């Protein structure tokens, strides 16, 4: 396909988007009828469709003209949570105040995003002068990272309900969207407690008791069996139980960032986020290691940091393009003396990566390698702590962790 054709198609796509946005479904039907009547009514002597054409043309023209008279003023704001999760509805709402001096009826509003993605509109109640309302924004973040909100678009249909007038109110805000998470089974790497240089002051006991520690809000990725149903019923939101893992272990969670941007990389980040959210709730330390502009190591657990901070970091991870896999390899080997076990999330299983896993095991670090690949990636030897995780079937793959 030639670039010219691409450009023409892109222009056509933009035009169709604009038509969908501006015209109501009834208006779109009128537009189609207008086109059909224009085609049928070319010869005014041969049919009467030209009369439909002029009628519909007058109808659409008047509808569009009416939109000029939509003069309203609003003040928009947001009620936003601190975090969202990719693929999960974001519980946020729009607050809108009518700062004009007229009653506004039949309005609808939708958030406007920086990246131009369309969000379904929500109907607003009647707003008298000075009145305010709050409606659910209906945002569904599809990607992790910063979700930037540009403002609010308030729409009002014309008296026929065919064409909509818009009023755009600027209200900039942003929310950090955490990666998608999956349930991760309890990890039991055959490592031992290791001497932690400098120690962790919060470490108070050693051993495994399965003792109940606290309740906390459900986070996507928590296993269902941890849900405390009675508390849910009482609080009106899902609550999970936390148990104390009394072994003081330190795990490394190594994320391979040496691959192209795309679904495989995103799935690898999601798998890492699933471990970050799941393992640190137990009483252990977790080092998140990856290479970006430099080699990063973030530690969480036992009072050093919350799992949320790891998720925040993972929300912003990007593929590394100027370094090699060796950087990550060295970073983990340098810490091998202090880590009890390592979970490696790899973007493929080539010679270099398989050699690295062998090396880790050779120096006595129990390792679980999760190889995230596309559905049509070539097969490799699985088993013995090496698992294949296919894009789109990550939860299924993670459930196989022994």
């Amino acid at each position, binding site marked *: 396909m030639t670039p010219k054709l691409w450009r023409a198609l892109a222009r056509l796509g933009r035009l169709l988007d604009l038509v969908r946005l501006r015209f109501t479904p009834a208006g779109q039907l009128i537009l189609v009828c207008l086109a059909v009547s224009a085609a049928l009514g070319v010869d005014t002597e*041969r049919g*009467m469709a030209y*009369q439909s054409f*002029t009628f519909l043309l007058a*109808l659409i023209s008047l509808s569009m003209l009416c939109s000029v008279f939509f003069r309203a003023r609003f003040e928009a704001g947001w009620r936003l949570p601190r975090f969202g999760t990719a693929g999960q509805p974001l519980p946020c709402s729009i607050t809108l105040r009518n700062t004009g001096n007229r009653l506004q009826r039949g309005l609808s509003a939708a958030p406007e995003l920086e990246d131009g993605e369309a969000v379904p509109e929500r109907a607003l109640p009647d707003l008298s002068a000075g009145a305010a309302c709050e409606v659910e924004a209906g945002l569904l973040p599809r990607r992790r990272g910063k979700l930037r909100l540009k403002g609010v678009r308030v729409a009002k*249909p014309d008296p026929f309900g065919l064409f909509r007038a818009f009023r755009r109110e600027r209200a900039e805000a942003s929310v950090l969207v955490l990666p998608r998470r999956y349930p991760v089974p309890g990890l039991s790497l055959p490592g031992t407690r290791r001497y932690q240089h400098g120690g962790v002051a919060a470490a108070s006991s050693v051993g495994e008791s399965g003792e109940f520690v606290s309740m906390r809000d459900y986070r996507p990725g928590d296993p269902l069996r941890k849900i405390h149903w009675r508390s849910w019923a009482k609080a009106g939101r899902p609550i999970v139980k936390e148990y104390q893992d009394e072994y003081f272990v330190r795990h490394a969670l190594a994320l391979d960032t040496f691959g192209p941007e795309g679904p495989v990389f995103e799935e690898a980040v999601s798998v890492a986020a699933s471990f970050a959210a799941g393992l640190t709730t137990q009483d252990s330390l977790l080092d998140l290691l990856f290479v970006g502009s430099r080699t990063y190591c973030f530690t969480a657990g036992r009072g050093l940091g919350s799992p949320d901070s790891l998720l925040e970091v993972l929300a912003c991870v990007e593929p590394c393009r100027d370094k090699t896999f060796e950087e990550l390899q060295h970073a983990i080997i340098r810490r091998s003396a202090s880590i009890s076990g390592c979970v490696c999330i790899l973007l493929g299983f080539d010679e270099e990566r398989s050699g690295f896993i062998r090396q880790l095991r050779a120096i006595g670090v129990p390792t679980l390698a999760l190889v995230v690949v596309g559905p049509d990636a070539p097969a490799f030897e699985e088993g013995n702590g090496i698992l294949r995780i296919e894009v789109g079937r990550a939860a299924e793959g993670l459930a196989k962790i022994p």
Partner: protein
Amino acid sequence: MNAPPLLIAAAALFWGRQVGLLAPAAVIALVIESARFVPWRLDLSRENQYRASDICAALFGVTSLVLYLTIEPLRAVMLMLQWLPLFLAPVAAMQAYSAARKLDAGAFFWTLRKRHKEGYARRLVDVSYIYAAVCVLCASNANVRTGEYYLANILLGGWALWSVRPKSSSAAVWALLLALTAALGYQGHQRLNSMQAVVEKTALGFVYSLMHAGGKDPFQSRTAIGSIGALKRFDHIILRVRPEGGKPPPALLHNACYDLYKERSWFAREAEFQAVPAVGAGGWKLSSAKSPESVSVAISLAGGAGVLPLPAGAARIQRLPADSLRKNRLGAVKVEGGPGLADFVVRFNRKASLESAPVSADLAVPPAHGKTFARIAAELQLASKKPRERADAVARWFARGFTYSLFQGGRPLFSDPLENFLTKTRSGHCEYFASATVLLLREAGIPARYATGFSVQEFSRLENAYIVRQRHAHAWARAFVDGGWRDMDTTPPSWSDAEKSRAASLEPLRDFGSWLKFGALRALWGSAGERLRRQLVWLLLPAGLWLVWKFRKGLGRLTLNRLRGIKDAAVPVQGWDSDLYKVEKRLRAKALGRRPWEPFTAWARRVGPSLRDEAAASRLKALAALHDRYRFDPAGLGAGERETLKNGAETLLR
């Protein structure tokens, strides 16, 4: 949202009335509207919907093919457009009787079916408004030229628009806008209709000349006056003429006439086309003059449309099945929606003419040529002669000192080519002679027009008919003498020999090929072809029936469900009729609505302080607690508590 009651019935009945299918329309209206009173619904799976719409599409396709093969393509298309609501009726009825009251969009788009398989969400469409719109638009093809159609547009359109009107829209403003729309639309279509002539004259005339190279542009003739080089070098046969009744064929066949000469071109002014009345199957009445002679003409019509070459005084045309035939005041006749090969009979009267009476424009000589023609007229002493003698004098003058030549040796730089022809070279092709004759006759006070068409002069033994080649295209003058328009061809008779001398050596071979092609076209479009197509229909009908049968088997078992059951299943089993919902709805209009994730008790706590007094707030809290029990407590509420909930909600609403 489905169309309001009776809208589809009204649209269908209007369509039936317009296209003359009132009985089927009444059945459609009855079937679709009865769904509102029938308590049963079809449990249609997605696949069933796909198959049912496929059956409709297959029936439409088969019928289209049958019509295409049996009648003219253009007429077939128009007829299918008229009948479209018939084929869509089962789909509309399917929606009316389906439980969902909407259809899967995949029933109409194959691409969506594929997307469903790939796991995309289903899209449902409401076809009720679409069906009403199809009925109205298809009714337009019936071309019933009364005010009924526009009135139906306003009434049915207004009805549909009222049903989708936003709640915030004021009824008075809405009505005013609709009235304004109706008035604007009326003005628009009145203007559009009157503009049709202008559009035809410019855009369509231009397109026509591009598309139908074989025919003539009936509005303009760009003559080759002043061109350099060889002209009319094409040998291929474009017409076949068979005289009937043992008489010789007419020497000239007219295509078009022009009355305005301007800058080397002839134009036809005020030459809008008017419909010619049909007389029986394939018969057309051009004029009421008696027509003792007849001739058969065969011509290929690209796309079934073109200008017909007719003898002067053509009165009737027979054996020409076409969608329409139109003529203009200058005698040009064009056909639309005709067969690929028009093999028709023309009845004509050599003494009559199709053209309108002369007007002052038929005497106009361009000022640039005024002096030259005045001088020639004076030289020939035309002013002192009777009209008939003047015409003869002009003909003699051209016959005396002028010669025919196809090749123009050089283009005059400073003088007009027509002036050059008259005063210097005295040699040219037919367009020079015709133009000069027309202008000289006008100078002499005889109304005259410029005619183009074909000269019938070559008889083919192979075809046993007169054949007319492209090079036989000719131009001549039409003079109004003795109360009628007469052909006046002043081009020297040697022109046909001059043309023939330049014929290609392979002409006989090409003629043979042309004869074979003509035979094939005749077999397809002639009476034998008609038989062939009819036989094909009998093959297609069982094929269509088989197709329906095959799809029918795929429909599987359809189940009927009682509507009541569906209604019950569609709402929560317990507590769905709680009166607190009404309170919540009322408060939502005051921007105090419940958030989607908010339990009623939490909502009551939140909005309580915003209520008018403390008592209302505490009542709302108490009602929310009762509501929660009514909705979720398996034991439900006692009669007294239910009454409390109801009365409490009513008090709050007041």
